[in-house]
């Protein structure tokens, strides 16, 4: 196998994760595993940090399920190829037409994995041969139709988010999520800028993300999540740089290349 992709493997259990990695090492030694994650939150974060070209996602993971990670990935400017991994075939995946989505059953069998890698190679060859001007390639190997199906399989929208509790000295300030302008991660802390000031909380941004309503709170950068109701404008500075201006704050926030597709105009 001549695939030379950067790859991410996400599974909440060490055994299956290592088993898949070992099988990949045997069958596609040139494939480079850049990240191994034990939950959906880390998988999404590592996808933003490492920008792998291929993701093996376990369906059942804490934080974000494999399906949720895939849905988020599909909105990126250059989504990676996605292969789902699951222990039991009757899961959601059987809802897809044969071949619409790649998936592997655990424990992963060499023959099945080889077949999957061949299909990936064929698809990537096709993508490479497509001139840039032609219609956009399917997102991460997922067509809009399969994405719709995926959306139906996702759990219903999460319950309303609880107030954010920020300790400040002896006080604990409660901040209603709708009052938050944006969250910004800063090493181990998260900065919360809201209507009446700002606060710092210990919950990492990538974990906070899981609780936020993605329709309201838009991730625009690996380390920035903005309340879309407070965005006044997105300004393109040059080919790769874009920034956001906010209502009620003079701060400008960066939009990373992957998320610039959010602001296309109508």
């Amino acid at each position, binding site marked *: 196998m001549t695939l030379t992709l950067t790859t991410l493997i996400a599974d909440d259990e060490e055994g299956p994760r290592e088993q898949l990695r070992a099988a990949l090492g045997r069958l596609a030694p040139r494939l480079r595993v850049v990240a191994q994650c034990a939950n959906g939150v880390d998988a999404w974060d590592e996808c933003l940090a490492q920008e792998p070209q291929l993701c093996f996602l376990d369906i059942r993971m*804490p934080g974000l399920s494999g399906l949720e990670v895939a849905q988020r990935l599909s909105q990126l400017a250059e989504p990676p190829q996605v292969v789902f991994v699951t222990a039991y075939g009757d899961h959601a995946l059987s809802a897809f037409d044969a071949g619409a989505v790649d998936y592997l059953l655990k424990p992963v069998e060499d023959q099945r994995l080889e077949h999957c890698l061949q299909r990936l190679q064929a698809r990537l060859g096709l993508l490479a041969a497509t001139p840039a001007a032609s219609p956009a390639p399917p997102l991460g190997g997922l067509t809009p139709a399969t994405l719709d199906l995926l959306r139906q399989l996702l759990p219903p929208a999460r319950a309303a988010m609880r107030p954010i509790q920020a300790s400040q000295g002896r006080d604990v300030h409660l901040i209603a999520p709708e009052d938050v302008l944006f969250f910004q991660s800063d090493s181990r802390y998260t900065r919360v800028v809201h209507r009446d000031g700002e606060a710092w909380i210990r919950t990492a941004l990538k974990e906070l993300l899981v609780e936020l309503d993605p329709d309201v709170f838009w991730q625009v950068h690996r380390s920035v999540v903005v309340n879309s109701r407070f965005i006044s404008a997105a300004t393109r500075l040059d080919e790769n740089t874009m920034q956001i201006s906010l209502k009620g704050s003079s701060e400008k926030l960066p939009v990373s290349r992957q998320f610039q597709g959010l602001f296309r105009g109508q």
Partner: protein
Amino acid sequence: MNRLSAMPDAPRIDWTQWIFPGPRRVFSEAELARAGGGGWSRGVDCYVYTNVFVLVLVFYKFLPGGVATAVLMSALAAAAASLAVARWLWRHPSRKRFNIASLTAGTVSACVPALMVQMGHRSLMHDLMPLLAGGLALVLTSWWFLTLYRSQQLEGRLREMADQQQRVAMAQRLAAAQIQPHFLFNTLASLQHWVDTQDARGGPLLRSLTRYLRATLPMFEHDRLPVAQELQIVSSYLDIMQARLGARLTWAVQVDTVPAEVLAGTSLPPGTLLTLVENAITHGIEPSLRGGHVAVSASLADGGGWLRLEVRDNGPGLTSGACDGVGLSNTRERLAAQSAGAAQMGMESAGPGCLAWIEWPLATPQTQNHSNLA
């Protein structure tokens, strides 16, 4: 019979119905006891008596003078007798009973005119003959329909009960199957890797899995399982999950305060405790980014009259529908059914996480022996 069922559409005359009419189906005493509920309605008695009374009144002026009261009395007596026979048929509808009843009624009815003629009432009997014949035909037809109706009703009820039993058995088997695949294949994935790489964790995991499968696969063949055995199944399950989840899971089983003979002598519906523990793992530990702790404990409650089993986790708690885990309502039903509604089961928020508990009434010494024998 075989030829009939081989060609179900072929029109055939069942000649036995000509000389020996009535339903073919014969019910055993056990079947009658099971499906025979819903006794004879008093309303039918009242209805028949009223009709007889009204009929005699209507025909009053056609009756020969002076015998009206005697006719009324004998009609009511005949009605009472045929109702008694009807109840007898209702209790056990069979061809045999129907034919005995018909023959007896025919013989008695034949004796009446013979007796009357011998006593010199030939012309009176001539006038009453249509009444007697009509009455007999009416009674025999009613018995016939009653026997057929009752027989079909019992047959239907028995079929319904059998269907229901089959559905329950199927649901239990499904509940057992629901436990298996995801758990099994994830375990096999770890095992596969550890065997491939000759990791020392492979051996113990395989041993736990074997122990777990040996205990759970025949689990649903029994109605009850001693708590001690259920605790062993739970321990091997937690052993497996521990091997798979590593540092994300810690667990403890605490049953010291309960005498060993109580644990061995008290039986619950199989899989009850296991379902709660699986639930704690699936909804409490696995969805949590940092994992957590599962504590299983048994204690005597309420002065030793109840055995209380608890499964506590410190996961995300009840908010995300952890309460309606697969098999929970099934478990609740089985607990209620096996304890005549006495056993209790609950699930509540416990600071961090979720607490699930079962309270099972402890048997008195005699019934405890009985359940041991069972």
